[in-house]
């Protein structure tokens, strides 16, 4: 067992599960989407990105790319959320919530691809 591999896989899968948990629920219902869960998803996703730094293989480059996509989507979600709560006059309405959740759904897709790549790598390396 390789400790580094465990940590790596742990964070990648955790990023996906947290993201999935946040995405679950009615798309425009703010009660179904927990802000803390979103926060955890964002932080774990960022840690994932840093963990993927410096891998020179082709697969490594793909993993980094998917992670960057997830980060980008989640950061945009955070900005929209902050805008809705603090700046917008209407507050967090159904419309805003829908766009937040749909963007998080995009990030989820990127995270899923990331996990698939992880599985592919594991299968290729059979050790």
């Amino acid at each position, binding site marked *: 067992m390789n400790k580094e591999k465990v940590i790596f896989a742990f964070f990648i899968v955790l990023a996906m599960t947290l993201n999935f948990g946040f995405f679950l629920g009615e798309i425009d219902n703010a009660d179904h989407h927990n*802000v803390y869960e979103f*926060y955890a998803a964002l*932080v774990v996703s960022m*840690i994932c990105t840093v*963990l993927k*730094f*410096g891998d020179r293989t082709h697969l490594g480059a793909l993993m980094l790319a998917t992670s960057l996509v997830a980060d980008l989507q989640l950061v945009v979600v955070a900005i929209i*959320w902050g805008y809705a*709560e*603090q700046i917008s006059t209407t507050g967090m309405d159904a419309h805003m919530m829908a766009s937040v959740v749909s963007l998080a759904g995009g990030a989820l897709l990127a995270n899923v691809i990331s996990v698939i790549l992880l599985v592919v790598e594991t299968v290729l390396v059979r050790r």
Partner: protein
Amino acid sequence: MNNVFYILMRRLRMPLITLIVVYSVSVLGFVLIPGMDDQGQVYRMDFFHAFYFVSFMGSTIGFGEIPYAFTSGQRMWAMLTIYSTVIAWLYGIGSMLSIFQDPAFSRLLRRRRFAAQVAALNQPFYLVCGYGVTGGIVVRKLAQRDIRCVVVDIEEAQIDALQMDNLPMPMPCLAADASLPDVLDDAGLQHEKCIGILALTNRDNVNLAIAIASKLLMPKRMVICRTESDVTTANLDSFGTDLVVDPFQTYAEYLALSVQAPYTHLVYDWLLNPSHRPLSSAYQRTRGRWIICGYGRFGRALCSRLIHDEVELIVVDDDPPEHNGLSEQIHGIGTEACTLRAAGVEDAVGIVAGTGNDADNLSIMMTARELNPRLLTVVRQNVHANRLVFQNSRSDFIMEPGRIIANRIMAQIKTPLLPVFLTLMLERYDDVWAHTLLNRMSSVVGNQELDSWAYTLDEEQTPALMLALAEGKPLKLSLFLKDPRDRQQSLKAFPLLLRRGETLMPLPGELTLLEQGDEILFCGLSRAAGRMDWTVSNYNVLHYVLTGSDDSNNLLARWLHRRENRG
């Protein structure tokens, strides 16, 4: 490809993760800890404000407690997070700085910068491997001629020396092993602007590796190589190296020439060496007994050159005669008077101090001169740092390998016509012819450096002449020699050789008519070369030189001139 970037990323993994964790925990703490608003109600900070607060706190800006004054609980958390964020930042910045100071990393950076500099070169350049004595002279001479070089040397100290040398233009340089093909590739071996590769390191094996690599990758490119053994010379010649310079052979040839034909030797010397020997040195007697001290590479080369002539050779060497394969040999180093007397120094004409030790060589020369003051002395200098002593030794010839190779290579680089002329002179002409030529050279340059340069009559080198030829004007060779400032004066130069197709015309007359494609070799002061450039590339100047009228040659002037003629 992006080595540097990957290393940076990998080394920064830990600091970045620490930073993210510390920030996220701090933000979470502020969201979870209850605060109090100005009405005394319980207030929970949201993520937006928490992130705002941690951002300015972490960077130690400190805008104060927002949006409401903190409770004691919040203050305690803030205290903790202030220290942890500052430590996280210090850790991150510290590791970044340590990466930049890491020698391996900075070597990588320098290599990348060097490769980028070379790739960006858009002028023709030479790739010089080895910046020792030879490399230093060649690079400096090339720089004077506005030709760029890319320098690779294995010693960091030599590269530093290059940067301190105050060359007129910046030269990309790298401290690396030039025998590695990827280093050569970074240094522009396959660059389209690279004119030639000069392998001048002091190790034959490295030079061989450079020559082979460049001949394999770029078969058409000129390769000039220095070597010190016959085996390597044969090896280099076998795969078509353009010029192989062996300092010992070259110098032996040069010395032998001075014995056989003193004036031809002087012409050769004037054309090749920047500081030439005085005309009077040709009157010295050179035929008779020569003593050669040291039967190493130099001694052997010299013996094989001189053995054909009317000279008696006495070899003085430390090794037993059987080892050297000589029937007659005086045993000893040559530094003692008794050994030299045994060799017959009193009635010898010359002595060659050619051992591998500088102190021995100087001692041999001093002792010999004491015994016979009229002796011609040739002394071999092995270490460049001893230059001052050797220069003041009043020896007739100083043989310094680095300088010899540099001069020979510069002759090749200046113009390929010069070696052609020298071979022609050695094959076809006698010493009397050389004496006349020498007098002419002497009247042109006096004691200054005799430079040589060549023109090919084509669009690139002589656009003005091509224009005039296209107009059908007959052009004589004499136009080159008129001063473009005042055509009554002539430039301090004269033509040495004209090559037209296969025919070679040495010392062509001034009335020779020029044709397209002619190659002309000139010698004279380098000042004259600059003036000549003017004549051949500027049509107006050429017009003045040919006719004496310095009208401007624009459209208006031509139109007016035509009207004038008509009227």
